[in-house]
Structure formats: structure tokens, C-alpha cells
């Protein structure tokens, strides 16, 4: 009787155990992605709380969130959403709040967060700017961070004056990229800060030992002088057009009407002309000292491609 009862028990428990195990095995799955609606920032602990809980271990806590930031960047790489690198911003912001001297985070995240949606339409640029500005505040002597911030300000936010100032400082820092002074003087001239642009270019010209680089800065000094003249002519054309409702036919017309005191002379030996777009130019060079417009270049390239495609049989 007792043996039968025992047998019955095992007959019941064994199938239940087996069914349970099989069900668990069948239903087992890797961790599910948390459901996401419209973009929401990751829920991160408050900085104050982390500072208390991680007392004495701030580097370790910062590293933990840095690893999370890298994972967020990795996830972003597999996505096509406009918000794909926003998680990286929130993690990086927390990491740099915990450890403001974590230099790598500013460089990596500041460059990764801006997202190109195609046709040079960029998003998340303000977040990248915030991080780079924090980086420059903590590393004022770092020329690379200033260069990245200047690029962000100039290209994404069209704040060329602020960008020029960062480049001007970057150009004077040690171990600076050799192209920084060249870009800095260009932006300073564009923002009509001719004295600062000339001071920078002349100082690099006078201290440069490489004859090729010296020649580049020598030319830049002349280009700045020319840009000063061209901007003066631009202002005169704008004033003329506003008053007359048309573009001037020649430079002499502007001199006659008092918009220019005398005929402008190109310090580089070229002839100054009025372009069809109402901007002045010179025969000494078709390029002006202004920020490189990548968006315009992109669309021009696209247009050229389309034209080529139409011409080809």
C-alpha cells in the first residue's frame, strides 16, 4: 500500500517536474529590449545620489557609466533613428559630471553625438556643443577640444565669431594642428576681426621655420588685407543696392555716388570686380576668406552628379 502510494507520488511529481523544465526551457529568451515610445532620456540616477553612494569610488562609478555610454553608442550604430546617439549624450554628461577630467569622453562623444540624417541635415548638435563646451571649460589648454567646438559652432550653429575666438586661442596652444592657425585667421577675417587675424598670421609667419608654411602665412597676411578691402566693397554694394534698387554697373559708379571713397586696390595685384550675386571678388583668387560651406558644396556635388547622369547616354 505504502509502496503504491510512493509510486503514485513519483508518477505525479516526475511529469510535473519534466513539464516545468520543458516549459521553462521553451519559454527562455534573451533579455527583452525595454519598450520605447517617442524618445525618452535614459533614467539615470541623480548626480548627488551617485556622489554619496560612490563616496571614495568616484572613478569606478564614472567608469561604469562610461562603459554604458560606449554600449549606448554601439546600439546607436545599429539604428537609423534621429535620436540614435542621444543616449550617449546623457551617459557622457553624467560621466563628465562625475569626473570632469575624463578627457576622452569629451572628444569621443562630442564628435559622435551629432547625427547626419542625410543631405547634410544634422541633429543633436546642441547636445554635442554642450559637452564640448564643458570639455573646453575643464581643459582650456586643449587645442583639439577647441578645434572640435569651433567646428560645431561654425558649421552647425553658424556662430562664426565664437568659433573664431576658440580657434584663435587654439592656434596659440602648444602641439596645435598646423592647419588651425590657417582656419583661425580665415574665420577671424570673416568676422571682421582683421587686427586679430593679422596678428595671428604675422606671428606664425615670423616664427615659422618651414619655408613652405612661412609662404602660406605670408600669403594669408595679404589675403587678410585683400579681404578687408573686399568687405568694404561688399558694404558699399549693399548700400548702393538698397538705395538704387539695383547692382552698381562698375566700381567707379560707387565712387561717383560716394559709396566708396576711392577705387579699391587689391593688395595681391588682382583686379576687383562685382559678381552677379552682388558680392565683390578679385581676379587674384576666386576664393574669399569665409567659412567653408559644406552644405553648399554637398548640393553642388549632387547637382553636378545629376547633370553628368543626364548627359551620359
Amino acid at each position, binding site marked *: 500500500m505504502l509502496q503504491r502510494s510512493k509510486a503514485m507520488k513519483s508518477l505525479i511529481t516526475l511529469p510535473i517536474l519534466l513539464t516545468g523544465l520543458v516549459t521553462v526551457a521553451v519559454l527562455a529568451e534573451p533579455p527583452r529590449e525595454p519598450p520605447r515610445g517617442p524618445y525618452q532620456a535614459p533614467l539615470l540616477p541623480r548626480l548627488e545620489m551617485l556622489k554619496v553612494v560612490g563616496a571614495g569610488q568616484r*572613478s569606478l562609478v564614472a*567608469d561604469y557609466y562610461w562603459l554604458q555610454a560606449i554600449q549606448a553608442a554601439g546600439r546607436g550604430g545599429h539604428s537609423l533613428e534621429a535620436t540614435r546617439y542621444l543616449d550617449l549624450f546623457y551617459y557622457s554628461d553624467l560621466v563628465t559630471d562625475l569626473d570632469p577630467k575624463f578627457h576622452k569622453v569629451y572628444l569621443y562623444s562630442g564628435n559622435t553625438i551629432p547625427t547626419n540624417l542625410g543631405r547634410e541635415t544634422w541633429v543633436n548638435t546642441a547636445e554635442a556643443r554642450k559637452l564640448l563646451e564643458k570639455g573646453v571649460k575643464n581643459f582650456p589648454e586643449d587645442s583639439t577640444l577647441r578645434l572640435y567646438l569651433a567646428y560645431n559652432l561654425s558649421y552647425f550653429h553658424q556662430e562664426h565669431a565664437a568659433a573664431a575666438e576658440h580657434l584663435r586661442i587654439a592656434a596659440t596652444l602648444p602641439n596645435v594642428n598646423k592647419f588651425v592657425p590657417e582656419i583661425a585667421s580665415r574665420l577671424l577675417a570673416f568676422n571682421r576681426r582683421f587686427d586679430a587675424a593679422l596678428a595671428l598670421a604675422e606671428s606664425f609667419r615670423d616664427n615659422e621655420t618651414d619655408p613652405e608654411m612661412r609662404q602660406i602665412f605670408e600669403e594669408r597676411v595679404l589675403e587678410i588685407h585683400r579681404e578687408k578691402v573686399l568687405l568694404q566693397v561688399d558694404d558699399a554694394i549693399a548700400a548702393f543696392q538698397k538705395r538704387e534698387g539695383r547692382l552698381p554697373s562698375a566700381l567707379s559708379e560707387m565712387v561717383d555716388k560716394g559709396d566708396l571713397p576711392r577705387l579699391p586696390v587689391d593688395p595681391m595685384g588682382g583686379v576687383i570686380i562685382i559678381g552677379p550675386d552682388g558680392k565683390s571678388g578679385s581676379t587674384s583668387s576666386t576664393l574669399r576668406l569665409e567659412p567653408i560651406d559644406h552644405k553648399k558644396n554637398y548640393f553642388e556635388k549632387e547637382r553636378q552628379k545629376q547633370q553628368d547622369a543626364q548627359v551620359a547616354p
Partner: protein
Amino acid sequence: MMRPFLALMLNGFREARRNRVTVVVGAFAFGLLVASSLLTNLSVSTFDRVLTDVGIGVMSIVLVLLAVFLSSGMLSREIERKTLFLIVSKPISRALFLTARFAGNMLTLGALLLAMGVLFFGQIALYGTLITQAQFVAIGMLFFELMVLSSIGFAMSSFSSQMVSATVTIGAYFAGHLGGDIYELSSKAESPLLQWVGKATYYALPNLSRLNYRVQATYEIPTPVAELAPSMLYAVAYSAVMIIIAVILFSRRDFK
């Protein structure tokens, strides 16, 4: 006097070994191995930093917890197991007993720190990353941090239960690292009384942040001995004060 001191100290060390504290080193080695294997996959170009932070960080967390556990439970365990009565009935002063036990405690922690340090540097060498003076400083100064914490644990356990002692010592760890905030906040207070109370609290608490050189290890910043020596002396002095308080309280305690 020296012989009983050494005997008690080594006895404390042996007892810790009997309590299987060496398992902690094994757990640390395992943790380090798993963490570094994961980190090689997860980290981007900051591998050296993360390896140093994880190694020294885990080392400090494990040893701080162990210091709290060993120091706060030592006297209560002796009372519980009645081994204390055997010792106090011998011609050994309570002061000698307590200081020898404290020395035994520090010997245990020191041996574990050494073993963990060897494992840590072994791993650093294995991965071919940089061994820096800052790492040695961070690990060396951790010993002094553990000394201060243990002394607080001993002072507490001389008159309170293990639970209370452990809670207060853990509290002292956090307060000791956040003491600077208490100082800053109190200096902003309008009331002079509040300012005075805040500053008094700051100076009464152990300044553990001055013994924390883990951030310097993160950034490979070397620290001159001239800067370390006063901090070491501070830790020894603070521990001495705590042990004297423990001796006074323990001597007055009635075990009847």
C-alpha cells in the same frame, strides 16, 4: 610584554584565516579575471584606465567591507565564545589585549592587501598596460584608510554590539569621504553656530578623502612622498586616538 603582544596578534591573524578570509582573495582574483575579460570587449581606448579603476576600486570595496566586519565583530565574538574571559583572567592588561588584537587585524588586512596587490599588478603586466607609481601609492594608502576604519570599528565594538559597531563604521566611511561637503555647506550657513558645528563635525570625522589616492592612479599622477607622509601620520594618529578611546572604554567595561 612583547611576547604576549606578538602571541595575541598572531592568534588574531590565525583566527581570521580560520574564518576563511583568504577566500576573499580568491573571490577578488576571480572577479578581476571576469571583469577584465568583459572590459576588453566593452571598453574603447580607455582600457588602461578602466583596468586600474576596477582593480583598485574592487580591492578597496572588498577590504573596507572586510575591515568593518573584522573590527566590529572581534570583541563581540570573543565575548560570545567566552574566550575573552580566559584572556582577561591572565596577567595581561586589557589595553595590551586590545592593541594586540588591532595589530592582528591590521596584519590580516595587510596580508590580504599584499596578495590582492600582487594579483592586480600581475594582471596589469599580463595585459601589458602601464605600471605606475600612482597605483602603488593608491594601494599603499588604502592600508592607512583601512587602519582608520578598523580603529573606529574597534572603538565602537568596545562598548556596543556588532550590529551597531558595523553600522557606525560604515557610516564613518561615507562621512569620512564626504567630509569636505560638510565643511563647504557649513561655511555657507548664515548662523555662526551652524558654521562652527559643521566645521567641528568635519574635523572630528576621519578625513578619508586625504587617504584616497585612487583618482591619482586613474590619471597616473605621481604623488611626492612629502605629500604622503603627513597623510600617513594623520591616519596613524587618528587610529591611535580611536584605539585609546577603545582601551579606556574596554577597561571600564564590566563582564560580570
